[in-house]
Every structure is written in C-alpha cells, then in structure tokens.
C-alpha cells in the first residue's frame, strides 16, 4: 500500500513531532482494530491538535486524517481553525472539500464545512454551489444533505433564477421524487422572484392536479396540494378544483386512499357535498348497512378502514374524533 510509505511518519517536516497514541485505557470497550496507516495518521494528528499548532504541516495532516475518516468532526473543526490562522485560499479549500464530498455525499461534516466556506465566500459562489449540488443530486436525487445545502445557499446567497425550472426538470424525470416536491414548496413560498404562495397558488394547484391525475397513487402531489392551503382550510374547501380532483379519481378508482382521505378532510372542514359527489359515494355507502345512517364523513372513514387496512387503527381513531366534534 502506498500509505505505509507516505504516512506522516515519513514526512520530513514531521521529524520533530512525537506521535501521541490514543488513550483508550487498560481495558478498552468498542475497541477498533485500527490499521497501521490509520493509527499513524491519528497519532500525529493528536500531537499537533493537542499542541494547537496552526501551521501548513498541520493543515496537510488534517487532509490526511480526513481522508482516512471524513466523519471525524474534531479534525474538520481543527482544520477550520488552521485555515483561518493561515488565511488560506478558500476557493482552493472548496475544491478540496468537493473532492471528498463526491466520495462521501452523506456525511454531515463535509456539508457543514462547505456551508462554512460558502458563507465566507459570499454570493459570488452561489451559482457554483448550485452546480455542485446539482451534480450530487444527479447521482441521488434525494440526498438530504445536498438538498439542505442547496436550500441554505438559496436563502443566504441567492441564485433563485432557475430554481423552479430545476424542480420542473427533476419532477419530469421522477414525479415521485418527494424531495423535489419539497424544494418546489420552498421555491413557491420563498423565492423573491415569484411573489410568494398567494401569487403562485392558482397555477400550482393546476400543476399539482395534473400530476395527481397522471398518477393518483403518488402520495407526493396529494400532500403538496394540501400544503398549498396549509392553515387555510376554509380556502381549501372553497376551491372547487380540490373536491373535483377527489371526485375524478374516485370515479375511476373508488378505493383510492389519498383521494378518500383528502375528501374526508374537506368534509370535516365543512365541505357541502355536491349532488355529483353524493352520487359517487352512494354505492360505497350502500355497500355497508352500518353506514346507511351515517353522515358522509363517517361513511368515508368507514370506507378507509376497509380499503386501507394498514392504517385501520388510524382510521378508527379518526372516526372517533368525528363523533366527538359533533357532540
């Protein structure tokens, strides 16, 4: 292995450093059988970390330690102190961290380091950051860290211009990608270029309904649709397109859980069912004698108990909240 030869023990600039072994005690628990190269790097790291030495050789050593374990937050923290002390070129540091991130895209420390750098570099790097997260998301479109970073960059440094377009593109590739739906919600509620939720609601409802009709079994747009009226149940009920989409889906598939559950929320929030809706639900009601006298919300709830057996406990409880409301 190359490591054995090139470890810090062989670096000329380390000649005066005395490695510090880990103090695991006489009878350690969860002891890791470290490989020699790992142990060597960490012993040297401890020496300089304990000495608080913020020097070029310490910086080089942290790079080595990060390479053997990018999850070591102490190393990253120390590296930041060194970067500041040396007034190091942060763009070069960004290249370093991006190389590490490409191999470890699900590591908290790396993304935190990136955020620290981007904050120092300012709005000029916004688009470069967006390009980077795009690259990571091209490999895994649901990477939580990448999305959080992207959102942070948008809100702190900007670069909103093509974000809705990006959401469209990702949803076109995979309409089930809930991370993309969540990002879309951020864009339509927070983008300074779009005018906020009120301005966007109408067209978003339209977009979402299209997505639902194309794939009624996709939960993401159903949740998104409710989200567009979060905290405003009265407006949700008033928008006829909402009950219409439930109706359309149920006509095709009377047992669609998402449609039934949204309809249930609408009824509970005071929706006055249209004749057409009543007619659509009539067979459901008739199929079960116990529902004959029940109000429509209860009937829908009973149907959910049957066609969503995994959530039978949830729907049973839900039903009790309906009756307690009446009383």
């Amino acid at each position, binding site marked *: 292995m190359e490591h054995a030869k090139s470890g810090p023990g062989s670096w000329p600039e380390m000649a005066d450093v005395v490695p510090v072994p880990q103090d695991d005690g006489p009878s350690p628990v*969860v002891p890791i059988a470290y490989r020699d190269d*790992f142990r060597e790097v960490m012993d040297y790291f401890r020496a300089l970390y304990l000495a608080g030495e913020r020097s070029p050789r310490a910086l080089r050593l942290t790079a080595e330690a990060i390479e053997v374990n990018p999850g070591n937050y102490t190393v990253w923290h120390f590296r930041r102190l060194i970067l500041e002390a040396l007034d190091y070129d942060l763009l070069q540091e960004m290249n370093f961290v991006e190389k590490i991130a490409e191999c470890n895209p699900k590591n908290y420390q790396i993304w935190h380091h990136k955020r620290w750098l981007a904050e120092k570099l300012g709005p000029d790097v916004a688009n470069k950051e967006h390009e980077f997260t795009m690259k990571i998301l091209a490999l895994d479109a649901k990477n939580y860290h990448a999305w959080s970073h992207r959102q942070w960059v948008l809100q702190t440094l900007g670069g909103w211009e093509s974000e809705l377009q990006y959401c469209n593109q990702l949803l076109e590739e995979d309409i089930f990608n809930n991370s993309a739906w969540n990002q879309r919600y951020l864009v339509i509620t927070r983008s300074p270029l779009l005018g906020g939720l009120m301005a966007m609601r109408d067209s978003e409802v339209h977009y979402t309904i299209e997505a639902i009709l194309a794939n009624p079994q996709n939960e993401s747009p159903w949740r998104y649709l409710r989200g567009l009226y979060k905290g405003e149940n009265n407006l949700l009920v008033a928008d006829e397109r909402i009950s219409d989409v439930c109706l359309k889906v149920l006509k095709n598939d009377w*047992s669609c859980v998402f449609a039934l559950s949204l309809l249930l929320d609408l009824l509970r929030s005071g929706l006055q069912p249209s004749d057409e809706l009543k007619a659509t639900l009539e067979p459901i009601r008739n199929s079960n004698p116990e529902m004959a006298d029940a109000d429509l919300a209860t009937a829908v709830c009973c149907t959910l108990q049957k066609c969503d057996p995994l959530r039978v406990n949830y729907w049973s409880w839900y039903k009790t909240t309906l009756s307690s409301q009446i009383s």
Partner: protein
Amino acid sequence: MVRLLGGGSARRPQHTARSRNRRPQQARAQPSGGDPPPTPAPAAAPMASSPQPAPPTGGDPAAPADPELPRLTVTQVEQMKVEARVADIYRVLFGAASNTKSIMLELWRDQHIEYLTHGLRHLGPAFHVLDANRPWLCYWMVHPLALLDEVLDDDLEDDIVDFLARCQDKDGGYGGGPGQLPHLATTYAAVNTLVTIGSERALSSINRDNLYKFMLRMKDESGAFRMHDGGEIDVRASYTAISVASLVNILDVELAKGVGDYIARCQTYEGGIAGEPHAEAHGGYTFCGLAALILLNEAEKLDLPCLIDWVAFRQGVECGFQGRTNKLVDGCYSFWQGAAIALTQKLVMIIDEQLKLSYSCKKPSGEDACGTSSSGCTSEKSSSAVDYAKFGYDFIQRSNQVGPLFHNIALQQYILLCAQVLEGGLRDKPGKNRDHYHSCYCLSGLSVSQYSATTDSDSCPLPQHVLGPYSNLLEPIHPLYNVVLDKYHTAYEFFSQE
C-alpha cells in the same frame, strides 16, 4: 402463538379492497409487467389472503391503466425491487404450517446477544469510519442488550464507565472518542449508555455542572443548539441536548428558551419535521422534534393531527416504515416513526383541542398561515419555577388515551421477518448487512410496538399484541429518551436527589 395471518386478530380487517393502496409501484407493477404477480402482493401481508370484495361502484379499479404507460421512474423501480424481496419472504410465511410460522416469527435472542456482546470487545478495522462515534457504538450495543434483558458482567460495565470517562471533556460533554471535541450527539449516546448501566459509579461519573456549561455554550442565539463548537445547527442537536438535560435534571429556562419555536419552524407542509426549516419531513427528525417538544411541555406548538397523519402514512405495504414520502422502507424507522406516533397516543388532550380549533371555528384571516398554533401557553410558561425533569416523568405515568395509531402487528412482522439476520443482529432491509445502529433501532421499535396497545406504563401487553411467541417480549422503554424504563426510573431518582 399469536395468530397474525388469516385475520386471527379481531382488529384485523376481514377483507381488503385492493392492496395497491399507497406505494407508487403497486399501481404500476401490474399493468406494466403484463402478467399479474404470481402471489398476493406484500401489501396483503398484514391483512392476509382474504378474498377481494366486489367493487361497489361503477368505476372499475381492476381496469388496466392508460394504454401507453410511461417508463418507470427511479423511485418506482427501486420500490418494486424491495417489494418483490419482501413479498418472497412473506410468501414463505403464508405458506407455512402454523408451528413453522411460530418458529419463523421468533426473535433470535441468543444470536443478537452474541452479536452485540461481541462488538463491545472486538471491532474490525472497517469500523475506523465510526472512530468519532464510539459512545454511539456503546449505546447501540448496551441499549439493545438491556432491551433483551441481558445483564452485563460487572467488569465489562466498569470498563464502559471508564471508557466513557475518557471521552468526557474536562469542560463538559462527551466526544466521539478519548480526546475528541465534545459533541451533543455523542453526549446523548454516552449519557444514555451510563443510565442503561445504571450503577452508582456510572451515574455519578457524569459531571453535570460542566455538562450544563457545555450545553449553554452550544446554544445559538436563535435558541436552537449546535452539535459542537462551530458545528451544525439542526433538530437532532436540539433533541439530544434537551433529552440529556432532562434526564440528568439540569434542564432549565435558560437552556429551554427558544428551542420549541425553532423546532416548530421545522414542521413542514407535509406534517413531519425536517432537520432544519424548509427541508423535507423526515422520520428521524420527526421523532427528535416531537420528543424534545414534549420534554419542554410545548407539544402544542406542532400541528399534531397533521403530524400523525404524515407518520401513519409512512407505514407501507412492506409493513415497516419509510423515513420520507416515496422513499424505501427501512428497519430503523420502526423506532423513529413508530415511537413518534406512539408518543402522540398520550397527547390526545392537545390533539382534541387542535382539532376543535382548526375545524369547528374558521381561523381568523391574517393569522400566520403555517397552521402551527403557537397560541396559548408560551409566555406564561417561562416563569422560572418550571420543573422540567417532571415533564419526562409525568409523561410516562400518563396512560395511552388511544390504542395504537399505527399497525403494531404489521410492524413487528417486518422487524422479525425482514430485519433479523440469522447470524445475529438486525438490518435496514433484506439484502442489506446487519449493523449495530439498525440492531439498536429495530429492537427499540419492536419494544415500542409490543407495548403500544397497553394502557398504563406498568402493565404487560396482551398476547395478541406480541407477534410470535410471547417470549419475544422485550423490556419496555421510556420513549422520550429511548432508555429501558426501569433504568430510567433509577436514574430519575438518582438525579432528583442531586
């Protein structure tokens, strides 16, 4: 043996409309494949192989979808693969004779104990990636061993206490290994491990004064916590800080200030909680956020009906939970999602109140549209007389006001059949390797689901709520801290005298 399959339990539905109720592929698998699946889809698992009722409406659910089917997306393809694997496993179960079923549904205690105990003394070179998580490794082994009611040797316990003392920073808090920077998450792992050991030596090894100072240093001006000096701020940091502070009885107004509002801002339009404001709702953060808010007595800051709905929908056709909408099932969410929804079973008072507010009277316009009613109790609570340690204690004394809001039997089925590894240890899903993290959280989730139908915290579950032989029953936990309940009580007494 508990009869799971074939509708043995009275609460199990006797027929199912269609099994394709939620995950995307279910809808697509049939039409796109041409042939119907050879066996009932795994969706049928919790509700068994009863006949399909005739659809009562004119709409024909069995009719093939649009003739020109779009290609499958990545989400759909991945989901189909997992469903097929899980279906294979459940198919064997359905076909088995009843005594074979009982064996299949056994918890392999000895193997798990062996795997976990071994790890406490021997970890191979590949574990170097967890070199900054060693208190976690302790917790991921010690806690599930306690769930299995396995007593550790005194020597081993003392060695764990000694090791964690080496991870304790001289200025408070615990790092990921000896000499490492103190970190809130590893502090949580270390404290929970020490509480689980429970000896006087273990509990008194925690320097509470310094721990308190460390936590104050980790507090951001927003009220939220950062993980370590200069570290990231998120809901995990807030939970681990609040859980530890509550457990060792150092939680006060100063530490509590602003945390609840931060967490409430992380609840998303979907209903779950994200790692930070505007990110995607996620099972791990949902548990963390909810548990922290309960420990702060501020659960009403969340939209609870919305949260429950989101969590309930995370349980999928595989019978386990997924972490996010349209993601794959994963055994560790048995705890994160399972415990989150189990916690809400004790919050019925607040939930009823919120339902009344949101549905009976319409919200006055102009109010914050985020729906999280922060009305009520914020300002009055910040008087300094609040006894924070009491909130965790009172919560567990409270009875479950409703039965399980998730399918507790189906969840146990997933854990026992899909997450167990024959050689010991548990895993994310079939096809993945076991690890200590998943062993810890699969077993924690198993305990939560076994006890989710009991009313008080000190009664034993009825046999019909324990899938498989009754000997599968694990120790109960305190779900806000995820430590075994007995151990919690010992620690509570110890720290209330301090």
